[in-house]
């Protein structure tokens, strides 16, 4: 007997954790299919979907593993549903092959990774941010991906909606790369009124089937595809394919397809990349942070500013595609980037690459199991800036 409302969008204030907020964001975005497999610390996303979807005309199915979960999500997307799965490290690893299928077949869907400490089973109940490069490069072959990085329950609600909209707009799997602290923090989440929530509907072809080429694109480079059952006798394959969708396994077709898959994200990256700046107009020292680490960084920034240091923060709401131009631009006018993350250098490598020697980059690492304290960040910043100390990398020791 469910005590939950049969309302689709539960407008109002709620005291919920990030996982539940994620599920509610998905529902608000129009998600009506969830295929998943329980895994700590993402289980509450599935539990909430199992409770809610049947009440609002959706479908929840617990699949036999994460490979099947993502396969079912891709199938459901071709059945016309906005579809999602959620997982954590080990399950994310199992999904890699089908992420590639989603990329090459241009299947809109959302994959939520509530990151925990790894490698392997690692720290099931505790935080990690070690999957950021896996999110970028984990499936084989070369491709572009979109990955968002919420830092609070409210943000995971908002960003899950955005993930669905980006998935539909650009036709690809969009990753929500949260972490255990975001997933398990319980706090106020405000769900707006339904008419204040912007959702993107899937574009559908208007040509009759005989005049239609599924993978022919206009200047947007994003194909307009029907769902199954709409009379187009589509052929959708994970093989390199031509505009008809037919396998064409040769170098010219590969070149054309892969270039377009990359370009459709690259040329739209300014519409995709999202961030928030704190004091960047006057900062000489810039923290670059994402996910739950943003919170201690904010406190560290305030304290350092009180001490007179020109510290700012670049909070990344999207990690992929990476905010290259922004970092490049900042590098020309700031002295130093500090990148605290719950790994031993992933996004910091991107910052360093884009800074290209114009500004220093210092990683502030944290192994899985927790996030940085503000003091830890302050200590590293001060130590790095101390006179006589060699500049550069590897300053992140206690």
């Amino acid at each position, binding site marked *: 007997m469910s005590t939950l409302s049969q309302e689709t969008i539960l407008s109002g204030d709620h005291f919920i954790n990030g996982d539940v907020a994620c599920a509610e964001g998905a529902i608000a975005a129009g998600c009506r299919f969830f295929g998943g497999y329980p895994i700590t610390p993402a289980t509450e996303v599935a539990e909430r979907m199992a409770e809610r979807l049947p009440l609002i005309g959706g479908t929840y199915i617990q699949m036999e593993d994460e490979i099947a*979960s993502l*396969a079912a999500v891709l199938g459901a997307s071709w*059945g016309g549903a906005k579809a999602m799965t959620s997982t954590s490290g080990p399950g994310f690893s199992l999904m890699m092959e089908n992420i*590639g299928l989603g990329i090459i077949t241009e299947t809109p869907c959302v994959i939520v990774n509530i990151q925990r400490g790894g490698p392997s089973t690692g720290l099931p109940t505790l935080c990690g941010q070690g999957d950021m490069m896996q999110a970028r490069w984990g499936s084989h072959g070369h491709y572009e991906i979109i990955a968002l990085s919420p830092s609070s329950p409210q943000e995971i609600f908002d960003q899950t909606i955005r993930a669905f909209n980006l998935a539909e707009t650009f036709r690809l799997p969009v990753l929500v790369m949260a972490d255990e602290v975001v997933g398990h923090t319980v706090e106020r989440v405000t769900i707006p009124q339904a008419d204040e929530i912007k959702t993107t509907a899937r574009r559908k072809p208007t040509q009759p089937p005989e005049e239609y080429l599924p993978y022919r694109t206009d200047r947007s480079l994003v194909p307009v595809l029907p769902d*199954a*059952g709409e*009379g187009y006798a*589509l052929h959708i394959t994970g093989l390199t394919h031509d505009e008809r969708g037919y396998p064409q396994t040769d170098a010219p077709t590969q070149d054309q397809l892969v270039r377009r898959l990359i370009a459709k994200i690259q040329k739209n990256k300014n519409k995709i990349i999202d961030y928030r700046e704190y004091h960047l107009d006057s900062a000489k020292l810039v923290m670059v942070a994402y996910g739950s680490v943003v919170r201690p960084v904010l406190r560290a920034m305030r304290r350092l500013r009180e001490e007179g240091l020109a510290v700012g923060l670049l909070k990344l709401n999207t990690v992929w595609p990476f905010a290259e131009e922004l970092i490049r631009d900042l590098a020309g006018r700031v002295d130093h980037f500090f990148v605290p993350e719950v790994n031993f250098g992933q996004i910091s490598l991107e910052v360093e690459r884009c800074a290209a020697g114009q500004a220093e980059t210092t990683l502030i690492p944290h192994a899985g199991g927790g996030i940085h304290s503000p003091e830890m960040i302050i200590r590293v910043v001060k130590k790095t800036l101390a006179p006589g100390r060699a500049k550069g990398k590897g300053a992140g020791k206690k």
Partner: protein
Amino acid sequence: MTKPRPHPKDELLRQDRIPHIWCPGCGIGSAVSACITALQRSGLDYDKFAVVSGIGCTGRVAGYLKLDSFHTTHGRAIPFATGLKLAKPELNVFVFSGEGDLFSIGGNHFIHAARRNMDLAVICVNNMNYGMTGGQVSANTPLGARTTTSPHGNTEIPLNLPSLAAACGAVYVARWLSLDVRRLAQAFEEALLKPGFAFVEVIAPCPTAFGRRNKLGDSREMIRLYNQNSVIKNGVHPDETVIEQSQKLVLGKFVDQKRPTYLERIAQREDRPGTVWPQKSGEG
């Protein structure tokens, strides 16, 4: 040159993809032909069919059928089809793939789709090896058979697919030779129209890889061998269909029963408080 007369099966073939990739004498073509016959006889709207394949020679079937068709990842046709069916239940979704795809790499998905009595038909062409990659051992290679990865003879016991399907809860289980297109078409039609999880195994020759390495001759000789060494036993217990040396290959329809399907159970779901254990009811 005069234009060839249209073939009655043209309407369901992607003519612009012919010639196909299959070797001369391969049994997959017969299975595809029988499948088209079944689709034509079903009387259902072709636009409401969708076919899902995995990887391998039989995995290419989806690419030749003029239906909404999906060529997915290796072993994952069944979960993909599950999502497609659940998102759009009015579609008649069927899976057409090989035994290496469905049972070696994808076995877990088969087990669970059958257990759920998912509303899917699964057609498996069993050619007893991985044909596409040049003939490696599969979970259905007979004991002693030579393949490129069992060069000294296969030492692993093959799966018996009808037993597995029945044990997992499939409501329709049949096995036929690719030779017998009449019975095959009949079985496919029954499977496509069957509510719930239906399974048809097609024993097919792979003369290029399996036949050659095991000295079974060309396609005609392989087919003759399979045909002469098989027996039809409709209704026999699926465990009595194990493919063994010196035993006749048992063909037939082994299971055809009714059980609430996944979608039927969802539709009848009741939100009741309390326990599912009868002896516990009334307590607490």
